[in-house]
């Protein structure tokens, strides 16, 4: 498998060591470190790494200024901003120079690797920007709410969905996203996972019967909570974007295909003991 080279720009030795620890045994290989802006620019132009992780506070310039210099060498450089502070104004300034991904210290290992994978998967700045601002909140709420609703631990991963169809065998709850960007969220799972989830959320004993209408209601309610909270998180950070959700529409059956045309979409899969909970988030192109 191809290894991707990473230039780590950070003036703190501890942060550099932590980054080395996270990226050890992954497809991402640290090719060099830079402890200030000047070194970063020199090393970037000499090594042309696939990815740069950029600290915000550098001794001779801030991370945004340093990124601007790197973009002047290579306008399609892939820079991930990592800083202790992550607020809307910093994100806006970063976006203005061309940075698409923003992470907060201390960096969560899985989150960093996922962001790096997406950055490398497709050199598509709109996908990266969407992933960063609009998909990540859903990853968090999916994992958190599976735990708070039914006590389920999950391993979550995200990928860009390049398939023509979303294949559903079981249940899919579709919730529209209005405002900016426009899109939709679909929580779906197979019939077995759906039943286990419904029993769990209602709190049925093993000998108690599960009513059919309770099954779809349970998944619908969970989708409403998860997507609603995800959108609230987005609205809290990006205050100029007022996203809203439409009421859920629920599809049940076998071998259903939901077309993915004209949407840039992402699959978030939460793997649990009860099966996979899948959240597909799609955005209308051009938004």
């Amino acid at each position, binding site marked *: 498998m191809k290894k991707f080279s990473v230039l780590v720009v950070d003036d703190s030795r501890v942060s550099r060591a932590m980054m080395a620890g996270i990226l050890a045994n992954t497809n991402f290989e640290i090719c060099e470190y830079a402890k200030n802006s000047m070194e970063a620019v020199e090393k970037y132009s000499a090594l042309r790494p696939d990815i740069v992780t950029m600290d915000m506070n550098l001794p001779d310039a801030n991370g945004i200024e340093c990124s601007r210099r790197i973009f002047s060498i290579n306008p399609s450089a892939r820079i991930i901003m990592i800083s202790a502070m992550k607020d809307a104004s910093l994100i806006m300034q970063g976006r203005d120079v061309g940075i698409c991904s923003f992470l907060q210290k201390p960096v969560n290992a899985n989150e960093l690797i996922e962001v790096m994978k997406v950055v490398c998967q497709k050199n598509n700045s709109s996908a990266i920007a969407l992933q960063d601002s609009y998909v990540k909140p859903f990853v968090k709420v999916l994992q958190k709410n599976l735990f708070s609703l039914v006590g389920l631990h999950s391993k979550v991963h995200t990928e860009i969905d390049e398939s023509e169809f979303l294949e559903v065998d079981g249940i899919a709850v579709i919730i529209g996203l209005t405002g900016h960007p426009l899109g939709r969220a679909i929580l779906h799972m197979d019939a077995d996972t759906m039943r286990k989830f419904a029993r769990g959320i209602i709190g049925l004993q093993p000998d108690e019967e599960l009513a059919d209408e309770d099954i779809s209601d349970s998944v*619908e309610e969970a989708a409403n909570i998860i997507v609603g909270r995800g959108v609230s998180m987005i609205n809290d950070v990006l205050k100029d974007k007022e996203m809203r959700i439409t009421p859920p529409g629920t599809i049940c059956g076998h*071998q259903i295909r*939901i077309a993915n045309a004209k949407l840039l979409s992402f699959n978030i899969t939460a793997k649990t003991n009860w099966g996979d909970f899948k959240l597909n988030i799609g955005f209308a192109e051009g938004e």
Partner: protein
Amino acid sequence: MDVKLVNPFIDAFTAIMPQIGFQDVKRNKMIVKERSIESLGVTVLVGFTKNIKGNVAYNMSESTAKFIASTMMMGMPVENFDDMAQSAISELSNMITANAATNLATLGYDADISTPSLSIGKAFVVKISGESYLSVEMDAGGHLIEIAIAVH
């Protein structure tokens, strides 16, 4: 659900269909339903929200969907319900719902609409409301389309 909220959708359908090549459009039956919608093969769901919230589903058979797509594409033959044909049906659903939203605004209800979700399958059901919803059967040149509307 208030029946007067259905008229904006019927008017939108009646206004849009002639623009894509269906001159003969009429409304058949309108009924209040409580159970899920049985998909006829192709069902497009569009949500709306703001000071009126709900869902509308456009439900039709695959052969109707292919015929409409073909008519929209100036009679281009549509053998399979492929991505181009699906895109045409999604776009039509979007056009009708956007037009209906404009009509709703004249009644004092603002609504933003979501992107359409087009589902295809042989046996599936679609639930758009926990309570009752209105189902209107529309006839466009002999091709039947069920419009199901739920307002929350």
